[in-house]
């Protein structure tokens, strides 16, 4: 396969840009990153995203396909302008490369609530996004892919199309403007057609031609649901995940690391394990051991048989002690106060004040495919096959572990068996590289057991909230939130750069400080808890706990005001941001919300604005002989233009299900410094019989494009809690809800 060879021969070029990235500067930022695709004779790489050769057209969608359909949506953005049929092109992920930077990662980090941003602020964000190229931000996450690719990929397609037309124009001796394109062909004025593939060689000699983007009224793909390019593979067992990579002479390995996370290994005795069937080598990887052998199950058995003395964890040993330490953060000064409207300290005459404390537990990502990577150390460099959300970071980490230069490492990104933020991390890459280094020349697939995966996560941080609010005349007049949690952002900065992260952490308070409700006295203070437990980015990140805190408390305020919780929210949203108000109106209408429910039925509502998208949800629960079942859900969202409505609906429901699963059952607890949950029976999720029926409506009135992958998660937890309150009169301020209610399992 030509493309495989091209990628292998050219990773040097893609990676050279990363080395340059360290020397950060204005010149470098604005210079185009090197095209990682280096065509051979007869092939034309028109830009880093489009390549044509005699066999046809290949598009590069260098975003992690973890279920969100990005491979298809990204290719559709290019194909829309390139005039190719999606079923006729080959779509590949491509190598790790600076050219594949994510321009939307940085713009979302700008200060400000988001929903009230001006055109200027939006454009500033777009401009700043280019810095991502110099920071090795080739990655997928933060619900950014469509925001990132919407203009850039259409431009890539349009430019490629016009360059191909230029080659045809020169061949035919006509002006380019006389030519048309359709389904991978150039159409001459006399109606004859030339396949793009036939023009590859001539196109390769031309400089890229710039082109205007088409008017949306001409679109064939965008705004319409496309058959997903990964669907046949995923319905036949032929889609390749990292765990499915098979190479000649491949060995299988597993890992067992200190369950006291961050602690080292004092000593180990592998004398019994060494002679077990299928075992070929047992390797010291620093904070644990890896077993290499002939069969994954056999090496898992052997890993369990190794006797290991572990060092202690650098954090308090029990859940209670950890939360006591989180609570201590409230004694210090806030890391941020990102919203401080009005005067929350002043007494409000005639107002009714309420206070409440909330907690949210640590959570695991629990992807269906456990952490897995294959690696092979050769004489010229290192090959890695894995499902990563951050290929360039993975390349740098693999290089540093192996003592190589980045350009000597090739990252092959497979499909991801779930991501949810877990595969932003690099630990599974590091482990696989250490294993490969123990047997140079031999490809080894390192698969974590489910237990190892669940107990060695970068967890969603546990969080605590102290909330105060007031209502007067049926309206909220005060909301004053204090939230304490560990900072995944600060930890990630330290893990990646080696330097402690600092500064105000917007992610810690997102989903609380920036909610689109008009409340005159509105403050949110974030406190960073100093706990040395590994935490990371769990689908919707800070919104995942702040959404629960804010929207449960809004319900408490509504009840304190004697108001219907949906009408109460709607009034406050209408005065702040009409886009959010429309989502609430939509779920009200979809669900036939009356504020009253029959005996044995409860309904709750919540709305969270996150990643640029407001999402309102109504959830209905039913009491069936004392057991409570989630019966129905209604979702209304508005991310502006929805590139693929089917995918958006799937993400909205999936995001909600991920949140509901956590709200019902999810908690990671600690004893003796070790995670107490081992496998799905201890950390379950909603299943076929416990999943609600759902209706999703996608509104498209938002001025700026919002995300789809995460915004469905935050409102699900409070909507369910509020429904349970409606049903039972019992207000749960702690998750998971199975501690308080008898939920159907």
């Amino acid at each position, binding site marked *: 396969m030509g493309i495989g060879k091209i990628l292998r021969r050219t990773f040097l070029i893609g990676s050279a840009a990363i080395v340059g990235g360290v020397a950060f500067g204005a010149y470098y930022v604005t210079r185009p990153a090197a095209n990682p695709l280096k065509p051979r004779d007869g092939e034309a790489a028109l830009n880093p995203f489009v390549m044509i050769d005699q066999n046809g057209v290949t598009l590069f969608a260098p975003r992690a396909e973890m279920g969100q359909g990005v491979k298809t949506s990204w290719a559709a953005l290019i194909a829309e302008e390139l005039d190719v049929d999606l079923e006729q092109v080959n779509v590949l992920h491509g190598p790790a490369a600076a050219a594949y930077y994510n321009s939307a990662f940085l713009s979302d980090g700008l200060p400000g609530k988001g929903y009230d941003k001006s055109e200027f602020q939006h454009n500033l964000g777009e401009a700043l996004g280019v810095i991502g190229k110099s920071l090795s931000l080739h990655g997928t996450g933060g619900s950014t892919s469509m925001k990132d690719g919407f203009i850039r990929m259409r431009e890539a397609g349009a430019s490629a199309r016009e360059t191909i037309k230029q080659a045809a124009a020169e061949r035919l001796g006509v002006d380019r403007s006389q030519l048309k394109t359709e389904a991978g062909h150039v159409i001459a004025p006399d109606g004859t057609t030339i396949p793009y593939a036939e023009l590859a060689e001539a196109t390769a000699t031309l400089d890229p031609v710039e082109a205007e983007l088409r008017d949306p009224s001409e679109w064939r793909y965008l705004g319409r649901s496309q*058959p997903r390019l990964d669907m046949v593979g995923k319905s036949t067992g032929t889609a390749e995940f990292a765990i499915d990579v098979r190479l000649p002479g491949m060995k299988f390995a597993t890992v067992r690391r200190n369950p006291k996370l961050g602690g080292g290994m004092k000593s180990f005795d592998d004398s019994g394990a060494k002679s077990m069937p299928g075992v070929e080598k047992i390797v010291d990887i620093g904070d644990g051991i890896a077993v290499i052998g002939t069969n994954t199950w056999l090496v898992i058995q052997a890993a369990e048989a190794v006797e290991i003395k572990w060092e202690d964890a650098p954090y308090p040993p029990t859940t209670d002690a950890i939360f006591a330490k989180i609570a201590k953060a409230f004694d210090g000064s806030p890391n941020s106060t990102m919203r401080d409207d009005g005067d929350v300290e002043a007494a409000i005459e005639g107002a009714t004040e309420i206070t409440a404390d909330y907690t949210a537990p640590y959570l695991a990502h629990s992807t269906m495919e456990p952490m897995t990577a294959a690696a092979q150390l050769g004489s010229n460099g290192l090959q890695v096959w894995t499902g990563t959300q951050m290929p360039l970071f993975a390349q740098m980490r693999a290089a540093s572990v192996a003592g190589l230069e980045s350009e000597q490492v090739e990252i092959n990104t497979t499909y991801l068996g779930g991501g949810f933020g877990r595969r932003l991390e690099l630990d599974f890459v590091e482990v696989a590289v250490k294993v490969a280094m123990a047997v140079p020349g031999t490809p080894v697939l390192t698969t974590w057991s489910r237990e190892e995966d669940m107990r060695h996560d970068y967890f969603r941080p546990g969080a605590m909230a102290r909330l105060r609010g007031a209502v007067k005349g049926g309206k909220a007049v005060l909301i004053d939130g204090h939230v304490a949690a560990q900072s995944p952002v600060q930890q990630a900065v330290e893990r990646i750069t080696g330097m402690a992260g600092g500064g105000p952490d917007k992610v810690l308070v997102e989903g609380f400080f920036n909610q689109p409700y008009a409340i005159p006295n509105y403050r949110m203070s974030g406190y960073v808890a100093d706990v040395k437990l590994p935490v990371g980015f769990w689908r919707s990140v800070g919104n995942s706990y702040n959404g629960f805190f804010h929207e449960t408390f809004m319900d408490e305020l509504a009840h304190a005001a004697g108001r219907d919780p949906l009408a109460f929210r709607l009034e406050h949203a209408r005065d702040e941001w009409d886009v959010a108000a429309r989502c609430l109106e939509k779920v009200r209408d979809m669900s036939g919300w009356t504020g009253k429910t029959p005996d044995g039925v409860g309904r709750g509502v919540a709305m969270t604005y996150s990643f640029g998208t407001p999402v309102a949800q109504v959830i209905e629960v039913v009491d069936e002989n004392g057991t409570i079942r989630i019966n129905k859900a209604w979702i209304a969202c508005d991310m502006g233009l929805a590139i693929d409505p089917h995918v958006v609906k799937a993400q909205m429901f999936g995001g909600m299900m991920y949140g509901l699963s956590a709200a019902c059952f999810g908690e990671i607890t600690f004893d003796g410094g070790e995670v107490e949950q081992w496998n799905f029976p201890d950390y379950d999720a909603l299943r076929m019989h416990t999943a609600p029926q759902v209706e999703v409506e996608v509104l498209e009135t938002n001025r700026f494009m919002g995300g789809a992958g995460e915004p469905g998660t935050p409102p699900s937890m409070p909507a369910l809690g509020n429904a349970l309150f409606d049903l039972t009169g019992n207000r749960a301020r702690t998750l998971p809800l199975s501690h308080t209610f008898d939920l159907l399992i």
Partner: protein
Amino acid sequence: MATTLTINGKTHQVDLPDDVPLLWVLRDEVGLTGTKFGCGVAACGACTVHINGEAVRSCQTPLSDVDGPVTTIEGVGTPESLATIQQAWIENQVAQCGYCQSGQIMQAASLLAENSAPTDADIDDAMQGNLCRCGTYPRIRAAIHDAATKLKEA
């Protein structure tokens, strides 16, 4: 000790201890990677295959307990020659990350073999052992109903 297995109609000789679960025989020995590892404790259904036509969790089926022909997702149909149930999966655009879907399809195929017109309650009963973290359940349900209709018409 060599064991003889019939997998998707082909005979395979495998030389592994007889407590090795069928899942790991398929994946690491025979090279059939469509059957997935999710939990190793029969709690997620990702490893579901058929033995003698019945759905079993291959992660909890030691080699010594394989007492009949095995069918995996690769034996149900291929991209070039899709089975009816796979066509229904594709038409309903079921998969998201896709990791659990081999197991979901194998479980659903066994349900349809026993019950040509399953109700929603039948689907709840049959499918509740198969975990999906992406939340594809509504489309799995729709695809099973569609497949039932297609099979009846065939």
